[in-house]
């Protein structure tokens, strides 16, 4: 928000939030996120969830495994898939943000909602052992991902799931539309391991110019 220099260029929308009832119907945590310098400057038109793990249902069923709820479970099932020549976790890092996206979902899993929020407002130190733990989990993922990840975008990497060659993928809920566009129905989703009960959203949020 800060890059738009809202106090100079944008209309504060506090009265709209009151009259339209947004302050009553939006979740409290979301209202906090939407404020900048004590005012509302935009209205979210779409909300996406970031911390989603997508998986190939057939590969899990064939191997009698459940999608992992914790990172310990993740690495156990990842070893099984790897031993059978299946890519446990597919990822594409071509566009430069995908590794950061994956890592922030791991930070949420080790720090919890409050600890993770604190990273961005100074309440949680980046030297925290739980950040070390998250980096360690991230480092341990590398033997389980596709070797061509830097050449692929996230959706190109997801083709491994559609082709039954890859088992899991961490991506926002927009992946749902991509699967549908491929007429692929053999996928399931759940929160990223360790992040059940936490919703990491992002949104397109139109604003209104002062002029």
């Amino acid at each position, binding site marked *: 928000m800060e890059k738009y220099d809202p106090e100079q260029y944008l209309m504060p929308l506090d009265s709209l939030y009151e009259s339209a009832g947004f302050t009553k119907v939006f979740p409290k945590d979301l209202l906090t*996120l939407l404020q900048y310098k004590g005012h509302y400057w935009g209205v979210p038109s779409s909300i996406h969830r*970031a911390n989603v793990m997508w998986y190939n249902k057939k590969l899990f069923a064939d191997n009698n495994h459940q999608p992992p709820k914790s990172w310990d479970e993740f690495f156990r099932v990842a070893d099984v898939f790897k031993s059978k020549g299946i890519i446990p976790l597919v990822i594409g890092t071509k566009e430069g943000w995908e590794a950061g996206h994956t890592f*922030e979902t791991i930070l949420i899993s080790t720090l919890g909602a409050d600890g993770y*929020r604190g990273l961005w407002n100074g309440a949680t130190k980046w030297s925290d052992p739980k950040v070390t733990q998250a*980096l360690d989990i991230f480092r341990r993922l590398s033997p389980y991902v596709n070797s061509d990840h830097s050449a692929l975008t996230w959706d190109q990497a997801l083709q491994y799931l559609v082709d039954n060659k890859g088992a899991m993928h961490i991506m926002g809920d927009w992946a749902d539309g991509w699967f549908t566009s491929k007429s692929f129905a053999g996928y399931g989703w759940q929160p990223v391991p360790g992040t059940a009960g936490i*919703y990491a959203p992002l949104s397109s949020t139109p604003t209104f110019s002062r002029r």
Partner: protein
Amino acid sequence: MKDWSTDSIVPSFVHGAAATEKWATVYKDILNTFAPKGDVAATQASLEQAARENGGA
């Protein structure tokens, strides 16, 4: 998704909801460097420095 109404909501950093764009760019670069090297201590030190320079701790 029913989780929307009951879950804790946290900001996504890499997509611009949690911090300044400058900080987010540095963060993304650090993580992209980490992926091939896997040096946990050096990466954490870089993340700490990025936080100090951009209003975190």
